[in-house]
């Protein structure tokens, strides 16, 4: 619990109504998408870089840890408050400060919601490619913290690939700009890249220069239905081998096809083993040949059906099931644990087979959606949080999935981050030298472990 003098000082920095210390007021900021909870002692809502600096300096003097927070959509526990910490919520720093279309750059504050950036840019025929599933709620600061991905990553890359530069408040309370308004402005070491994805553990981002680009002239959306996930995997490999890098290659398995049919009747066959949503974009004259090749590949991989959307309504219909996929599983169980394992594309079929084994070995129900092009799988383990046995099975199955990913030469997190949920498995993925390297990075920026302590690694 904070002393009255500390609360008074915090209010003098942020303003009276932008500091919350009441139990009821803090509740909504104590959990995230993991369903876990933390125990913090206050929440502050800075509105400017200077307020962030003042808060960091004051908290350092007081020995209080700070946990940064955007919309709280995190699914690895990265935004869960640590004991006795203050949550720094960036919701008030949500300005889109500048859009420079001709130079393909926008300057934004961390609290702006990804979708709001997209909507604004769309008015000018531009967009910002990283499109995490949470984009209607998640903030750019959160996306930066996790280096979020999304369906378009296969062709365009993840958040780290679209950041030119950052204004950062360091644990020393000093403000630095790393990078600039282009990719050539790093001070030799690529500090932007080490900060993006660092889960708020080494610096708090207060402004970002993001790369924006014109919306492609044309796009074609396809749906391919398969008897088995293995056939769908083969189609993915063959599309890439044919020299085509689609914008998106999204896969859903049989369970998800059925939950989405129950939910909204998207029109997909319930007996299908898997479906692929495939999109290509670019110059209109190039797309027909690509669509034709993809159709041939799908046929060769034994697709039951292959459709090409011919109208915006058909595009929406194809995407409908994928958009409701996560929510639809509530028809089976009230809760789900979303996993984020990623394997090399060639090991995708093995990952699918391993998920089947986990289902049997741990007695859990799993539905899988995947960004199949980049080997990023989201096995959703369905459970009832009120049932302790199911929660225990969930945790055991999640750990097994991570081990499987490492054994298949992959990674435990493709786009959700480590937070606290996957921290225990980090040494298995990186070994003692790798863990020591992470500590070198953390110590360089935050030797007192004041920024988001306990997340990602322990010092």
């Amino acid at each position, binding site marked *: 619990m904070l002393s009255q003098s500390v609360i008074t000082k915090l209010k003098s920095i942020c303003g009276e109504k932008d500091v919350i210390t009441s139990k009821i007021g803090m509740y909504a900021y104590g959990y995230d998408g993991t369903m876990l909870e933390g125990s913090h002692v206050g929440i502050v809502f800075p509105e400017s870089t200077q307020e962030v600096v003042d808060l960091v300096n004051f908290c350092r003097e007081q020995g209080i840890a700070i946990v940064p927070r955007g919309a709280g959509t995190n699914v690895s526990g990265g935004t869960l408050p640590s004991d006795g910490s203050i949550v720094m919520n960036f919701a008030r720093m949500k300005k889109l400060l500048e859009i420079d279309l*001709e*130079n*393909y*750059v926008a300057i934004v504050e961390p609290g702006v919601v990804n979708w709001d950036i997209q909507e604004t840019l769309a008015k000018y025929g531009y967009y910002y490619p990283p499109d995490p599933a949470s984009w209607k709620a998640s903030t750019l600061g959160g996306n930066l913290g996790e*280096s979020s991905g999304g369906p378009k*990553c*296969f062709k365009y890359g*993840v958040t780290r690939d679209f950041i030119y530069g950052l204004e950062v408040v*360091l644990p020393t309370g*000093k403000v*630095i*700009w790393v990078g*600039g*308004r*282009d*990719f*050539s*402005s*790093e*001070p*030799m*070491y*690529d*500090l932007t*890249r*080490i900060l993006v*994805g660092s889960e708020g553990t*080494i610096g708090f981002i207060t402004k970002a220069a993001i790369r924006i680009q014109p919306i492609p002239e044309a796009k074609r959306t396809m749906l391919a239905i398969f008897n088995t996930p293995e056939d769908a995997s083969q189609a993915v*490999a063959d599309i*890439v081998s044919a*020299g*085509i*890098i689609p914008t998106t290659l999204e896969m859903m398995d049989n369970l998800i096809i059925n939950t989405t049919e129950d939910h909204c009747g998207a029109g997909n066959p319930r007996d299908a083993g898997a479906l692929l949503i495939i999109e290509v974009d670019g*110059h209109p*004259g*190039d797309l027909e*040949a*690509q669509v034709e090749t993809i159709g041939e590949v799908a046929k060769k991989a034994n697709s039951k059906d292959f459709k090409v959307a011919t109208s915006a309504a058909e595009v929406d219909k194809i995407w409908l099931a994928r958009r409701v996929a996560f929510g639809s599983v509530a028809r089976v169980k009230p809760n789900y644990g979303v996993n984020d394992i990623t394997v*090399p*594309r*060639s090991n995708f079929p093995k990952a699918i087979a391993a998920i089947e084994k986990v289902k049997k070995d741990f007695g859990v129900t799993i539905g899988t959606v995947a960004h199949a092009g*980049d*080997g990023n799988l989201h096995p959703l383990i369905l459970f009832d949080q009120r049932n302790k046995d199911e929660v225990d099975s969930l945790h055991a199955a999640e750990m097994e999935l991570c081990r499987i990913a490492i054994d298949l030469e*992959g*990674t435990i*997190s*493709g*786009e*959700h981050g*480590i937070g606290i949920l996957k921290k225990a498995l980090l040494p298995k*993925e*990186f*070994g003692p*030298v*790798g863990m020591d*390297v992470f500590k070198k*990075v953390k110590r*360089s*920026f935050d030797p007192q472990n004041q920024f988001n302590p306990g997340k990602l*690694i322990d010092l």
Partner: protein
Amino acid sequence: MSDIIAKIKGIVGDANVVTADMPQYLKGNEQPAAVVFPGSTEDVVGIVKAAYDADVKVNVGGNVVETKGLSGGIAVVMSRMNQIEEVDPENLTCWVQAGMNHQEFVEKLSEKKLNFPPEPYAVSTSSIGGCFSIGDVDSKAFNYLPTRTFILAYESVLPTGEVYKVGTKCIKCVSGYDMIHFIAGSRATFGILTRVLVKLLPAPQAAKAVVADVPSLAAAAKAFKAIQKRKVFPTRLNALNKALGNEVMETSGCLVLVDIEGFPVSTAQYAKEVEAELKIAGASFTKVIEDKAEYDELWSKWLKVREKINLEENKVKFTVGPAKVVNALGSLSGIVSNIEENPGVLVEGLNGKITVFTDPDANAAAINNMAMGLGGNVSGLLGSQLRCKAYNDNEMLEEISRVLNSIRSEFDPKGIMAPGIKL
């Protein structure tokens, strides 16, 4: 010193340690005690551990090693570690040893219809290890993204002698701090790269080039802006002033080099549109190159010019954004006099970047101030320092320096690696 050389000879063999006739392997005026040629990661570990224990400086290169600060130290030349270990077409990846020649690597992959887009920094000597150690943002970076985006994993030997492996064949990874991409641009200060897993792309299905002799760099820059207004984004969109352009082909004005890779329909249309804009800009000569041999020859010549530019010490690189290049060229003439007659000016239209041959000590600050007025800045560490100075922000200058040196000393507590690099 003789002890450590004897020790290293014991590790890599007498034939792979040179202590006389070293200049062919060195760049710079200082003299290391030996040039050594490791043949394996284990060799590199042995060399680095020996140097670390003896507190001897080390620097590394693919074929040539920078000797600044290396007097009496060890120059490690990686040219024996030059093998492609695995090409994986299904995952579009390739494991390659760090000493592999960059251009040879590109050509070998091209034979397999695979594309490794980053351009060699210096085409005659650059290695793959050097490619990522420098971490350049080259002329193709607008479309393909910077060099760093093509590293997926690597093995290195840390300055303390441990072998460090990080990364996977997955193009997505947010597991831990992003040490995979952080290595790019670190110039051996975190250790010696020994093996790299690179990301590949399918070879483009079509490629064309457009060349033009345009009256001035400003006219070329205006054409570049018009090309982008048409939503045409070629692979390369470069202009060279007369001195540099004439190393590719004789021109009366500046030489415009446009590379268009992609699919057959769009490349044909984009080539027409680009050529049309260059004619509007007053080009006295234009040509669309479709023949593969001629296309390859053109870009081979470009890479030699790029090498010359990159090896030139008296130059300043700065970025203002693609839309401000015309303004920047106008202002630049006021700082370095006539840019058309300058010994070297390169405009990379899509990156909005200009490189000019001039003495940085004399002109970098003025160029940076001009670039900042247009929303840009001088590139790299120098640019970061000049920006802080322009804002009179010593606090930021000191803090960036503190962070950089803190990271470096965590990795290299004795400061033995890449002694010529000052942060």
